[in-house]
């Protein structure tokens, strides 16, 4: 959740509290039942707590990604050259591979996976994981999974996903 959204929810809670306090006044513009207020509050607090559940998911997703990504990156149909792998890492994971031209495919994959394992910026990781999962399960993508322009297809998908967020 964006911090602006969270602050808006807190502002709404502040307003509800103020209205609840003034409900005791003789004017009674708006009457708020205390039980209903607690119910609303509990729901709103459960919404506020959601980013932390997202954080837990990211940790799990990270483990899954580390397990599956080497297998995907080894596929020469999807990644005919090492450059394709480096391109995916740089543009969608913000990971650079130094001297990649002098490295074997296995070395490059190892460096990328190590970087993901050490990544503690959950924002970078979630911005990759969610579109990646969506991309892999997209039916249109499935039809082109073995195409040689796999990386370009992914990067186009990734940019669209980011722009629509």
């Amino acid at each position: 959740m964006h911090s602006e959204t969270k602050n808006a929810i807190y502002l709404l809670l502040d307003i509800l509290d103020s209205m609840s306090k003034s409900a005791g006044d003789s004017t009674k513009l708006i009457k708020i039942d205390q039980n209903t207020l607690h119910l609303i509050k509990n729901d709103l607090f459960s919404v506020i707590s959601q980013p932390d559940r997202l954080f837990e998911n990211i940790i799990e997703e990270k483990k899954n990604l580390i397990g599956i990504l080497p297998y995907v990156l080894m596929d020469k149909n999807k990644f005919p050259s090492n450059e394709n792998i480096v391109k995916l890492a740089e543009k969608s994971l913000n990971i650079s591979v130094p001297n990649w031209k002098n490295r074997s495919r296995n070395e490059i994959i190892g460096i990328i996976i190590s970087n993901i394992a050490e990544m503690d910026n959950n924002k970078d990781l979630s911005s990759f994981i969610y579109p990646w999962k969506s991309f892999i399960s997209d039916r249109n993508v499935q039809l082109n999974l073995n195409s040689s322009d796999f990386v370009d297809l992914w990067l186009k998908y990734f940019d669209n996903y980011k722009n629509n967020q």
Partner: protein
Amino acid sequence: MAKVVSFINMKGGVGKTTLSVNIGYTLAKEFGKRVLLIDADPQMNATQYTLHEDLVYEILDDPNKSIFGILDNRTPLPGVLHRDERGSQKFNGIFQITNKFHVIPSNIRLMELNLALSPFKLRKYIKDNVNSSYDIIIIDSPPTISSYTNIALLASQYYIVPMTTDYLSLVGLPILEAYISNLKQEFAIDLTAIGIILNKVDTQLKMYQDVKQKILAKTEWRQILFNNELLERTMIGRAFLQEKINANQQYIIELNNDELKQNIIRITQEFMQKGRI
């Protein structure tokens, strides 16, 4: 980035530890927040509240496994490796109570340290080491005007004042206000009051009503007074037994008492709302 909140009152026995520990635990357990509780009081109340007895003895034997290890800046003895050279010896005084509720305990030997020499040491430790790993860092401060209290407040952006509804606690409020105002001026820091939480409340007592009226009569206190108050229940004190601590059953939401559970959950919700956590 974590928000850092000190629980402070110059008077002892007002519920600083009960509230800081239980709000911290509830934030982690009920609301999924990543919480670090730092016990800055050499009396070690929060340490004993949260850690098993054998761990408390271990910390007493090795003060470096407590906040002492962060704040000790005495020159190493000749022949002993200098701090920079023993870079691999990382601070190992963070204890995991649950997945998301961690504790840095205190140690009685904190009193040996001259903390006035480096008042921002805890602030620096938090900024450099733990700030990004938690949503909230709660500091249980000592009930004194001392260098321990200074380092706790200087590491915080916010503070909470737990108090009981008796006349002495009320007298303590302006003293605390003056102390914090001086500290803010002396060190040029931002420190905002999140609120005053009433503890050990018995709404039937006349003293409760008197004290509350006096708080409500002062605009700046009325604005931050929590709507939710922790009720006086012997069950809360009785939970502080070793067998309960060993089973992590000492926390209010674990007492199998729905009234108290809802009570601490609502206080925690209000804490989140007022602190925008």
